């Protein structure tokens, strides 16, 4: 099965990077873990959402009287029952706050909420939907960004000329000079598909509004703090009067940190009838009315010297933004930023245009614009190497980022293990020897961020905070605002806390996912929690430990030159580890010295002076071995190898799981997960027709972990698990290129595309012979 290798392992830790079970594992393998999906409150009503059948229409009127007359129906709400506030997660920028979750007068995509019903059963609520009469004035619609920017295209939002929602420009170095120096220039157009987050737990929420004007919301999300802030905004309430609880969350992948129809409609319905209301999206609703990875059209032009030295690159991108902004503005920036990765350029320029269309809004999804960027970049680089007769791995290596690389105005690379990644991938390829005739290998490189330095949300709080409380029996409460969504953040923080305090993971109780009881934290997105919440957790743990050691010093009578430490619940002089005392005994004494107050340590983290994007960057290479059936075009993944630098790994099991999981999602983006639209309607909104990797399709996922040390990360750690969503599609494309010489310019690569490309190639070759 899989092979796991570690290159340059660091000094052994007591807890970090050891085989620690997931702290939520017990609950998850026994069926005890209760998700929002499982929540049932006394007197709870069930809600359903009526959705627009039109891609673009004015709402002239809604008559809900028949629905309200149905026995069991308790409330119907429409846009008219809301404050009509246009919201968005980019709340610092008013023009990017463009979405009313229940629109007042206009719908902009098929599936957009129009009204919501609360009834005593889900069945009655569903029946009531059929009784709501909506008078639509259907408007002309536009579905593709390159059509929507044309003069005379239907106007989707007032005041956005040519439907351009956001533009982004990135430029550094000397672009023109770079192209002048170039001895070979290649330009290509690419098309990148969307992708459904497809969280196993569909969007769902339970809201309960009570007569004391307080609102409690259970919601499947990636950032309870963002939800609290956004809901306060749309309801004109104080954040402190809203409690958001995200219990166990059934997946997120970048799709659950904006308001959705479930959270908003349950709140509005509950405020109308003062009863808890629950809404669970069906799988179809989740497909057609959540959000998706951003489809993109990419133009990229790259100039290199004949020896393979990279000179300059410029890219132009048009993205299908769908009906609203969401997190799309960030994806538009990050795709441009990561399109330059992981290479050094004399000059780099990017212009991105996010275009409104009458389709499902697009947003962030694991990789945050980078999978699209790498699909184009890493294939074009492979083709350039072939055009120039150079070794594609060595050409990449000589141009790659290194420790100390500066991207002017954007980033400084403090740790970078990509050079050893090339070694490991090369070893893997060589180890395979001669491949069977129907197989080939493709590789692809990339780097990724460890959390964003962005505060478009306009939070006045630290990006991450943590509180560590030590109880009298030596057990520890760790309160964090980081959100566990399956990626293992609760376990990672418990490990950091236990390592720092010198106790065991089973001593730590992690509290997260509740705005009433946890400190604010921006949540789980952009691979930020290991570094940011990890730093806050480490600081809080160090602070609590210092308070304990002050007592230990005072009673020890040690010479001041000696240091004390705690390991495995044993407080001791580092120079004389046998001289010491039990952790619990020390805690009890320290409590008495504090007049009975528990020891509380606080920690926080906000990046400062770390450039524009992120405090640290991970690096990786992905290799895939692919088999293709020439007749059917069917692609089969036979083997894979990931060489990966995430600094110091913290959560060993979690890291392997994140890399294998990212690979499967990334490979799905490359050749399976296709979202075809016809006239604004998604044609495969179910798990029969939307193809994803299942167990038989998943190849072995070999991993070589290159341990570097990232100075900004806790214990040297940085991102893992999101970055690896980026390189794989291009690696699959490159494998096809090496086997057949075909250049695939659209992803996902479907079988008919392979068949057509081979047919075209044969026809071209035949024509050349004549």
């Amino acid at each position, binding site marked *: *099965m*899989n092979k796991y290798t570690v290159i340059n392992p660091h000094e052994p830790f007591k807890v970090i990077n050891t*085989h620690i*079970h*997931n702290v*939520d*594992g*017990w*609950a*998850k*393998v*026994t*069926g*005890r*873990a*209760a*998700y929002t*999906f*499982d929540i*049932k409150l006394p007197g709870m009503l069930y809600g359903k959402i009526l959705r627009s059948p039109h891609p673009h229409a004015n709402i002239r009127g809604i008559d809900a009287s028949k629905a309200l007359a149905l026995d069991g129906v308790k409330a119907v709400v429409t846009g008219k029952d809301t404050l009509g506030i246009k919201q968005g997660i980019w709340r610092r920028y008013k023009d990017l706050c463009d979405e009313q979750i229940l629109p007042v007068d206009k719908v902009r995509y098929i599936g957009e909420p129009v009204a919501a019903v609360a009834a005593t059963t889900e069945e009655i609520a569903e029946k009531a939907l059929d009784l709501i009469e909506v008078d639509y004035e259907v408007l002309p619609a536009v579905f593709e960004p390159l059509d929507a920017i044309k003069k005379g295209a239907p106007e989707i939002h007032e005041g956005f000329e040519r439907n351009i929602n956001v533009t982004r420009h990135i430029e550094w170095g000397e672009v023109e000079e770079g192209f002048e120096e170039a001895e070979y220039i290649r330009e290509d157009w690419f098309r990148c598909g969307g992708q459904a987050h*497809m*969280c*196993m*737990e*569909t969007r769902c929420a339970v809201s309960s509004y009570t007569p004391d004007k307080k609102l409690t919301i259970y919601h499947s999300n990636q950032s309870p703090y963002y939800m609290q802030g956004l809901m306060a905004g749309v309801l004109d309430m104080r954040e402190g009067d809203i409690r958001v609880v995200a219990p*166990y*969350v*059934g*997946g*997120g*992948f970048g799709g659950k940190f904006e308001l959705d129809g479930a959270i908003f409609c349950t709140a509005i319905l509950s405020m109308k009838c003062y009863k808890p209301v629950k809404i669970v999206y*069906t*799988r*179809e609703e989740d497909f057609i009315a959540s959000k998706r990875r951003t489809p993109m059209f990419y133009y990229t032009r790259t100039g290199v010297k004949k020896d393979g030295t990279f000179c300059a690159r410029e890219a132009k991108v048009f993205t299908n933004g769908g009906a609203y902004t969401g997190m799309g503005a960030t994806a538009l920036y990050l795709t441009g930023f990561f399109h330059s990765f992981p290479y050094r350029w004399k000059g780099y320029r990017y212009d991105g245009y996010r275009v409104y269309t009458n389709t499902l809004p697009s947003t962030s999804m694991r990789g945050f614009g980078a999978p699209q960027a790498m699909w184009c970049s890493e294939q074009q680089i492979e083709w350039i190497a072939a055009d120039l007769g150079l070794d594609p791995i060595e050409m990449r290596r000589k141009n790659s980022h290194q420790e100390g690389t500066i991207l002017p105005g954007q980033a400084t690379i403090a740790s970078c293990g990509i050079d050893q990644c090339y070694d490991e991938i090369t070893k893997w390829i060589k180890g395979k020897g001669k491949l069977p005739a129907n197989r080939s290998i493709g590789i692809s490189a990339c780097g990724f961020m460890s959390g964003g330095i962005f505060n478009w949300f306009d939070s006045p709080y630290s990006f991450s905070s943590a509180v560590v409380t030590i109880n009298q029996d030596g057990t520890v409460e760790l309160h964090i605002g980081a959100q566990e*969504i*399956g*990626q*293992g953040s609760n376990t990672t923080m418990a490990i950091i806390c236990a390592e720092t305090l010198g106790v065991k993971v089973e001593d730590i109780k992690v509290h997260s996912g509740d705005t009433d009881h946890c400190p604010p934290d921006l949540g789980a997105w952009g691979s930020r929690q290991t570094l940011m919440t990890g730093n806050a957790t480490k600081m809080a743990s160090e602070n609590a430990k210092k308070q304990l050691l002050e007592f230990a010093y005072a009673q020890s009578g040690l010479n001041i030159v000696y240091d004390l430490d705690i390991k495995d619940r044993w407080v001791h002089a580092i120079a004389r580890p046998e001289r010491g005392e039990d952790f619990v005994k020390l805690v009890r004494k320290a409590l008495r010295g504090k007049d009975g107050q528990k020891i509380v340590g606080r920690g926080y983290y906000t990046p400062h002076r770390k450039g524009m994007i992120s405090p640290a960057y991970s690096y990786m290479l992905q290799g895939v071995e692919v088999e293709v059936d020439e007749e059917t075009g069917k692609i089969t993944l036979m083997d894979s190898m990931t060489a990966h630098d995430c600094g110091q790994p913290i959560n060993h*099991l*979690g890291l*392997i*799981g*994140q890399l*294998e*999981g*990212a*690979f*499967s*999602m990334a490979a799905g983006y490359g050749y399976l997960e296709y979202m075809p639209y016809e006239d604004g309607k998604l044609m495969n909104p*179910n*798990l*029969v027709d939307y193809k*994803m*990797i*299942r*167990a*038989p399709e*998943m190849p*072995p*996922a070999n991993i070589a972990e290159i341990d570097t040390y990232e100075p900004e990360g806790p214990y040297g750690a940085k991102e893992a698990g999101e970055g690896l969503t980026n390189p794989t599609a291009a690696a699959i494309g490159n494998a096809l290129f090496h086997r057949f010489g075909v250049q695939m310019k659209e992803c996902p690569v479907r079988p008919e595309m392979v068949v057509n490309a081979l047919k075209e190639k044969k026809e071209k070759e035949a024509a050349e012979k004549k």
Partner: protein
Amino acid sequence: MEKQLLRLNVNDQNYEIYINPKTLLVEAIRDHIELTGTKRGCDTVSCGACTVVVDDMAVKACSVLAVQAEGTKILTSEGLEVNGKLAPIQKAFLDEGAFQCGFCTSGMLMSSVAFLNETKKPTEKEIRDGIEGNICRCTGYNSIVRAIDSVAKGKYTEDKV
């Protein structure tokens, strides 16, 4: 439709519930018996999150009516442990980290249990085919395959309950 009395045996416990005859087995288990470990992830019998074991066979509980399960013995993820002691497959899932968000886990465990009961020395391919009906969006399946393989190879024999 008139509600009717239905007797179900779930995890060796007898339950009497009044249900509409068109109630699905998954609805009976989750909404009436209130064992919520069993999940639902789709409406097309595609994802396997609702898999339970009915008389030793893995069954997607959204694909059968509750009344069809009368007289059978139903096992859900809540029935795997005995007196707080985890079953081998549960221990293997913990050891291999064979879950992340956990939403598919109950169904995945039940498919694994049924598979291991009927296949004694499975090959890796047989394991993969055995859980083909269950979607996991998080793990990429390999950790789950490793967990099933380690149980099949007898790693947890002494733990058998």
